[in-house]
């Protein structure tokens, strides 16, 4: 058991170094086409992996989550803004969870 501040310093330090070093050290433009393509795809890949299947376990029940998921997918395909998609997704989950309680 260490003091909270020692824990805090370690986790903040590691997290910052991971973020900071590449941004500070890599200051030239990359030319390699594979690397550029890889970097283009990586954010979409990371966000997808973090969302599926975790989204189905994010709320009380999987079917409430599924309702939120479907709403988010439909609104995203219609290119609604992030806030609208997130808010409507929450409302869908809330509605399903409310129905379950009745």
């Amino acid at each position: 058991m260490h003091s909270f501040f020692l824990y805090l310093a370690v986790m903040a330090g590691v997290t910052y170094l991971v973020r900071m070093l590449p941004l500070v050290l890599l200051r030239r433009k990359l030319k390699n086409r594979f690397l550029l393509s890889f970097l283009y795809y990586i954010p979409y890949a990371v966000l997808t992996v973090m969302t599926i299947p975790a989204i189905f376990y994010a709320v009380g029940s999987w079917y409430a989550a599924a309702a939120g998921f479907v709403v988010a997918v439909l609104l995203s395909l219609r290119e609604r803004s992030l806030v609208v998609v997130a808010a409507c997704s929450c409302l869908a989950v809330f509605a399903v969870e409310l129905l379950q309680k009745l």
Partner: protein
Amino acid sequence: MREQNSFAKGVRDGLPICFGYLSVAFAFGIFALSHGLTVVESVLMSMTNVTSAGQLAAVPIIATGGTLIELAVSQLVINLRYALMSVSLSQKLGPSVRLIDRFLISFVNTDEVFAVASSQNGAVGRKYMYGLILMPFLGWSAGTLIGAAAGEFLPEIVISALGIAIYGMFIAIVLPKAKGHRPTAACVGIAIVLSCVFTYVPVLKEIPRGFTVILCAVVAAAVMAILAPVGEEEDHA
């Protein structure tokens, strides 16, 4: 290449991220408090780390008096994806970004900040980036404070529904791009299959999640970078 360098535009683009973070940070505040952290400790953790997954993993380790090594390794593995994002972001920063700016901007290079910066056409400047990270940082800190301080009084059903907000945002970032660009859609498809394999298949599912997130994403992005390299003309990244 024109540089996007309006502070106001950055703040505007950061607002939706801020709202998204409020709910997640709120949930984190409740989570941290329920594990025995104080309100001040919870908020300090959010202000110094600004990472949802890393903090969620750290709280139980700290609460159970885990070792510093365990804590450091968990943060390294879970947050290693930021290194990839920082590499990518380093290619996106325009000439107005000085070395000192890179030290500061990288502190709040979160998934969402990175995604929004990446989605800009052309390079991004220092003023735009400071505007972009301001509101998410405040939202993340304030959300934690509100969650830790008042979360206990909200009904369970409201807290539960808010848990899906961040994923809704992720979907709203990925799908419009996948809809208009087939290789991106293929990349998303590969990522989904791999992610499910490493979540459900016996043995494979035992590998720590922080590690498999990186593995799945790297494989999906590398496969598509080989099969469908992004040319100059469609290089939106």
